[in-house]
């Protein structure tokens, strides 16, 4: 398999957000780039609490050995039933296309920072992010890759990400 650059374009944005935060991290949609990255960054930063959820059994099996005390990993049967409606410092959104805007809405007043992958306008038909942007006070779009990444927040004005 050839790795597309767009599959990893969220990494520098996640690094930026993790650098300015301290609390628990939620990953919706696991992968060979984001899951190891979040695992090691959270471990190195004093074992930050990390929860990773994945509905694809193959992806789940590939990454489940990262499961540790500080890093909980769960295979999702029904996204409506995952226990995420509580405070998070950072939430990374990269799971099933049709579910993303639903979980973003759920997390809009729970997560201080939402990092959302694939926000390029060309993918709007697939993800429908335009529906959820008005729910947030603050937004930053990172467009250095064809696969854009955006940060959304109702709590932080995001200016600290510019440093």
């Amino acid at each position, binding site marked *: 398999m050839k790795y597309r650059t767009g599959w990893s374009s969220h990494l520098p944005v996640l690094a930026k957000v993790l650098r300015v935060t301290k609390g628990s991290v939620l990953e919706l949609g696991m992968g060979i780039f984001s899951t*190891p990255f979040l695992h090691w960054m959270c471990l*190195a930063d004093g074992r930050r609490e990390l929860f990773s959820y994945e509905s694809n059994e193959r992806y789940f099996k590939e990454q489940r050995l990262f499961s540790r005390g500080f890093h909980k990993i769960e295979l999702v049967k029904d996204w409506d039933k995952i226990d995420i409606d509580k405070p998070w410092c950072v939430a990374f959104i990269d799971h099933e296309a049709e579910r993303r805007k639903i979980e973003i809405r759920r997390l809009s007043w729970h997560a201080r920072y939402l990092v959302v992958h694939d926000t390029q306008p060309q993918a709007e038909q697939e993800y429908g992010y335009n529906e959820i942007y008005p729910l947030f006070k603050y937004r930053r779009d990172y467009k*250095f890759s064809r696969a854009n990444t955006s940060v959304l927040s109702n709590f932080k004005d995001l200016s600290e990400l510019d440093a």
Partner: protein
Amino acid sequence: MAKLLAGSHIPILIKLVQMTDGPVLELGIGYNSTPLLHWLCGASRHLVSLEGDEKWVKKFQEYNVDRHIVKHIEDWDKADIDNTHWSVVLIDHRPALRRKVDAERLKDKADYILIHDSEPEINKFYRYTDIYPLFKYRHDYTAVKPNSVVLSNFKDLSNL
């Protein structure tokens, strides 16, 4: 299991790249370092990723752009790495005993040399201890395991 738990050098690698602004060299490509370096180096920094296994080079071919050279190396002795002063070098290639050879080769050509898999119990595979005396400064990154080590003849590493 070892493959899945790869990537423990990610936190210290990010730190080194973010505190420097010059060229970066990656010896040994992989999904935990190549994409990360590609995006962290951005449009302005020169990045060279070299790999002995052609299969991996093909996997990451899309990352091979003007500012980021991704290249297959058949003979590490012939790799053109000696004519640049690198800000950061990541050493994570194979064969295991080749790592100390290239670290020694770059000892006066890099501000920071980050070498993966440096815990003492596996020194018999890599023999990094042979090259530690060649460097003025050394920082053992043991916050996560597998460990990494940072070596330098130019930068005091006490701030790491």
